[in-house]
């Protein structure tokens, strides 16, 4: 993100400049995608939220007065689209209160395990799936590629900026504890030797 200038990119993209537009898409693609994924949308629904967010930006270029808030605007838009999709399909809309300790998720998250090559990665993924939902959501956004700013993550999840650091620590500690309970940690693989 070092040489990305949101104001210049936004102004050029609003004039139809494809390269400037592509630079905006690359910069924020990880943020937008992980917002959709964080709400546990399927791949198809995530793709709809992702595409809808970009269509909204093209539609509303003129509404963004402060280019420094572009990431926050996109994250908020993606979150709203994700929640609308959840409502429309009759699924539960998660509470946004990060201080609430939510129930541990019942089992492993969506079936992405085939992507994971090693036993350690599958063990980690399975432990991740047992974290409270708010932990899973936040960690997904924190490890988005390209990385997102805390301010934009806060908009993408509707949580206070100041809660991100402490929650990150608490969630990673929780994950570490689960891993050490499961087994002697990531290095001690179960079976298959």
């Amino acid at each position, binding site marked *: 993100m070092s040489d990305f200038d949101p104001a210049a990119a936004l102004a050029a993209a609003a004039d139809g400049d494809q390269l400037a537009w592509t630079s905006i898409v690359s910069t924020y*693609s990880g943020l937008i995608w992980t917002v959709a994924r964080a709400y546990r949308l399927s791949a198809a629904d995530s793709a709809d939220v*992702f*595409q*809808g967010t970009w269509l909204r930006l*093209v539609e509303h270029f003129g509404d963004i007065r402060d280019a420094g808030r572009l990431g926050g605007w996109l994250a908020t838009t993606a979150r709203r689209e994700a929640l609308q999709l959840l409502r429309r399909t009759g699924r539960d809309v998660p509470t946004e209160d990060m201080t609430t300790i939510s129930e541990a998720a019942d089992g492993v998250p969506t079936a992405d395990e085939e992507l*994971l090559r090693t036993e350690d*990665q599958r063990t980690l*993924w399975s432990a991740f799936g047992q974290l409270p939902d708010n932990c899973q959501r936040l960690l997904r956004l924190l490890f988005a590629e390209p990385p997102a700013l805390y301010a934009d993550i806060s908009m993408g999840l509707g949580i206070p900026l100041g809660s991100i650091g402490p929650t990150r620590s608490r969630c990673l500690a929780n994950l570490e504890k689960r891993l050490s309970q499961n087994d002697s940690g990531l290095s001690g693989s179960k079976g298959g030797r």
Partner: protein
Amino acid sequence: MSEEDVAAALREVLQMVDRVPEAALEAANAAIGWRDLDANLALLAAEYGPELTHLRGGQARLLTFHDQRTIIEVEVSADRGQARLLGQLDPPREADVTAETAGQSRTVRADPQGRFSFTELRDGWVRLVIADADQPSDRSVTEWFLV
């Protein structure tokens, strides 16, 4: 194992699981092509779900868009896996109504009562472009909506 070791290992896993699909990136890069500076944007003013509309088919939604000069009401319902739109222009008038989607654009004529319909639309993002019969250059375009 330290917190930061766990973080590093998790980062690696999440970057595999949450990688943005190439097709999604391509579609996003093409989204700039939908820029339409000349049309008036008709904003979504209200959306009612099945619980309020009592429409047939269970999954129907009623969307209301408006700009300065027109109101566009659209009922979206599912029809054997595809979407059906029934629309009404207010004030009622004849107009060309185009449903724009990523894959296709189709135009129908709203009748003198301002009614129009589309059937067999594929699931995805849609917007409607309204060009009045007597003032075709003065167009309204709705915000994108998902069918």
